């Protein structure tokens, strides 16, 4: 049918040498470049998470003093949000798979794509330099007037995040244009793989929300440098205005982190239960709905910040609408298992963990969006628990599911299944032990960002720290077997999962041109009423 992969070099071997990677315009290589950076940043952010948990083992400061603690949680937040979660799935798996899934040779603007990577790297370096040489203590939210008056070195971090934002915009722009103009003939909107839909929705948010963040960071930076007084009460400014502008980006940013992993979930659940999605329409509706309504719910971060009661009511009601778009996805994923032919492998274990965690993350989200209940929970560990269920429990589990599902696609080699499932179970268990106590701590009234705390909170903090160490072992396990698989793993073949997703219509790892002949997608993705996996073009 098609020439064996040996005759055509894969994208990995098409050109040799580090220099060929650093000037590549191939979306697959750029995806791998991103993956390297993103994993590095994740390791760094994770290390500081451990440091925080270690400090919180006892009520009084012993490992880190209050200053070091405040810098460490800022570092953890900034790295995890901007250097890991926001780019995690779109820039790596999105870059690698989006063109393949729509049957294109590359993204619309390959040079711009490489430029985005360099911007991201530069922004990351500046941010890290700022975090390590001076160390800001503002938290990742940069609330004014604290951020404009803090004596620590906030400026490089603002600049770094601004540049990363720019990179994120360019990636989103590239994806939007790719989806619009480079779909293979016959690939209509309502037949696109759900991962592509998710990336498309994400890109819209990236393009429309990130500039507001850029602006507000710029304003804080100028305020620090020149004292322009925009958020300074003494000059007539309003510090709460910053929160409005910040959350106008940062609330949709939550969906930048979670939507792509929801796309991953739709792919993984279909592939491993060998079923068509239970309701393709509902997932698409959910994706588009989240991307749209997500823009109008930012005020639920300010129920107790002095916003008008009517305003809080409107934002509260709109937040309920966002929640409904997530809940219909949960129902659809579980429905997809019905009458499937389920193979329990590492990606599916992560996916099941994801469904469980996003349910709790989502329901606690609804809880804190309920105006009166939020008065108690706002800025306590309940909120910390809520967003870690979304950011770690869901987004990170989705990232790991994607990594395990597409590892053979990207590198052509297979990891051992036993240790992979073992690590997955360990990570899910460790996660629950780490973050379930946070809800209870929040109920008790433990405020967030506390370096020290009253003794009555200690028992739950100890449990949480113990869970964090389990998580650390789980991640070390993954690092171990994936590195082994990269070097010595058995060859995976073109389609080791026998998945009917469109991305498997090219060789694994794909040749530089993705497809040797122009692909034709005759059937819907994940149509398992027939035996044959998609033809490899």
């Amino acid at each position, binding site marked *: 049918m098609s020439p064996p992969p040996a005759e055509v070099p894969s994208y990995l071997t098409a050109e040799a040498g580090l220099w060929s990677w650093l000037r590549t315009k191939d979306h697959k290589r750029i995806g791998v470049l991103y993956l390297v950076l993103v994993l590095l940043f994740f390791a760094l952010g994770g290390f500081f998470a451990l440091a925080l948990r270690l400090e919180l083992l006892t009520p009084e400061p012993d490992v880190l003093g209050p200053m070091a603690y405040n810098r460490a949680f800022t570092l953890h937040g900034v790295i995890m949000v901007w250097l890991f979660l926001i780019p995690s799935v779109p820039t790596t798996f999105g870059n690698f798979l989006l063109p393949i899934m729509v049957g294109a040779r590359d993204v619309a603007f390959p040079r711009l794509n490489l430029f985005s990577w360099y911007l991201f790297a530069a922004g990351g370096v500046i941010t890290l330099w700022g975090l390590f040489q001076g160390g800001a203590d503002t938290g990742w939210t940069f609330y004014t007037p604290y951020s404009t008056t803090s004596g620590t070195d906030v400026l490089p971090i603002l600049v770094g995040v601004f540049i990363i934002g720019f990179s994120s915009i360019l990636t989103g722009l590239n994806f939007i244009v790719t989806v619009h103009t480079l779909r293979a003939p016959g690939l209509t909107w309502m037949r696109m793989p759900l991962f592509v839909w998710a990336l498309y929705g994400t890109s819209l948010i990236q393009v429309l929300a990130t500039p507001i963040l850029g602006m507000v960071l710029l304003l804080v930076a100028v305020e620090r440098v020149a004292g322009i007084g925009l958020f300074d009460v003494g000059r007539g400014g309003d510090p709460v205005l910053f929160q409005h502008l910040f959350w106008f980006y940062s609330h949709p940013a939550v969906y930048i982190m979670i939507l792509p992993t929801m796309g991953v979930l739709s792919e993984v659940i279909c592939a491993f239960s060998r079923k068509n999605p239970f309701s393709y329409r509902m997932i698409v509706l959910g994706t588009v709905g989240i991307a749209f309504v997500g823009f109008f719910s930012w005020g639920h971060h300010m129920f107790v910040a*002095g916003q008008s009661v009517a305003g809080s009511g409107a934002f509260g009601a709109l937040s309920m609408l966002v929640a*409904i778009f997530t809940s219909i996805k949960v129902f659809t994923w579980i429905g997809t298992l019905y009458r499937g032919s389920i193979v329990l492998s590492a990606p599916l274990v992560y996916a*099941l963990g994801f469904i*469980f965690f996003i*349910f709790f993350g989502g329901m606690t989200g609804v809880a804190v969006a309920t105006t009166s*209940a939020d008065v108690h929970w706002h800025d306590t560990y309940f909120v910390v628990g809520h967003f870690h269920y979304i950011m770690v429990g869901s987004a990170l589990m989705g990232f790991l599911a994607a990594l395990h599902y597409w590892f053979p696609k990207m590198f052509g080699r297979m990891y051992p299944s036993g240790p992979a499932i073992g690590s997955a179970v360990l990570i899910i268990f460790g996660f629950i032990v780490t973050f379930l106590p946070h809800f209870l701590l929040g109920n008790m009234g433990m405020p967030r960002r506390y370096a020290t705390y009253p003794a009555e909170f200690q028992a739950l903090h100890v449990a949480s720290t113990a869970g964090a160490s389990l998580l650390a072992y789980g991640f070390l396990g993954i690092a171990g077997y994936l590195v082994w698989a990269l070097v010595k793993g058995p060859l995976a073949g073109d389609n080791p999962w026998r998945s009917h997703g469109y991305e498997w219509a090219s060789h694994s790892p794909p040749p530089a041109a993705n497809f040797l002949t122009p692909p034709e997608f005759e059937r819907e993705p994940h149509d*398992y009423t027939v035996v044959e996996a998609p033809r490899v073009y």
Partner: protein
Amino acid sequence: MSELMRRMLFLPEAASTFATRVDGLHFFVIGMSMLVATGLAVVGLVFLVRYKRRPGDAPTTPRVEAPHWMEALFLSLPLTFFLLWFVIGFLDFSWFNSPPRGALDVYVMGKQWMWKFAYADGPSSVGVLYVPAGRPVRLLITSRDVIHSFFVPDFRVKHDAVPGRYTQIWFEAPRPGRHAIYCTEYCGLMHSRMRGEVVVLAPADFEAWSAQEQGGDVATLSPFHEGAEVEEARGPMAARGRRVAAEKGCFKCHTEDGTPHIGPTWLGLYLRVERLKSGEDIVADEAYLTRSMMDPDAQVVAGFLPVMPTYLGQLSATDAAALVEYIKSLRPARPGEAVSQEPVYVPTSR
């Protein structure tokens, strides 16, 4: 039942009328989530076991799609609950945001890293807020530097302290007791040490404490002859307010006898309905009066020029409170009513 739920969820004692109200919603939301989670887990597990691939299974599966009625159900059922919670929550939230008339006013000022409290009738304290049991207390909260947040877990009450503006919340603690105060908005180095305590006293004990504290404050005021005179008629806090007004030059623009001048007269200003430049009507209550000192141009009454300078950072919380009390004491004479009276707080119960 609700006591059991409270202990299971690690919620602290419900020590305010708002806490008992809102805990019901907490239990409803969390309980319902747990119920649905169990349901989903069971369904998922059954599917996992029942439809696990077994050797010899056909590699194909039938095409199954959700029927329309099921899609509609998935959309509408959760939405119904979400909106129900929203409605219950918003009713409570509105209740929480509208202090009853006649509540005891306490001015709260957050600064790095402590809480200061000043009472309408004189006393003030740092770190410890004394309130009487069984009487609504209204807090007028502001900050002197960065944003803080005033949080009493036992009351389920929290509000940000924002520099340059006064925000108000209220609570009513039915029983005497001691409750922790935390700062929940990150405010720098000693954020986690910015704690305090609410001490709820039996009404009689509170009166005793208040009287004792006032004694100290009157002594500092007595050298001012005029102050002493006003004090006799209107109470020590209003007297102090008059002194502050004289020191800060308020009388250059405001009068106390109804004569029109550059700024609105203070006679009868309290609770007067004023029309703003924007056409909006506002009530000149405590929040408006304090805001007008700190951020004068934000809400200018129609017919006046935005010329008042800000007094942000120039007035201590106690001084600002004293000014408000003084303005409150300036009531126009009406037949059958004393010219000026110390404001009387009547505990209102709901």
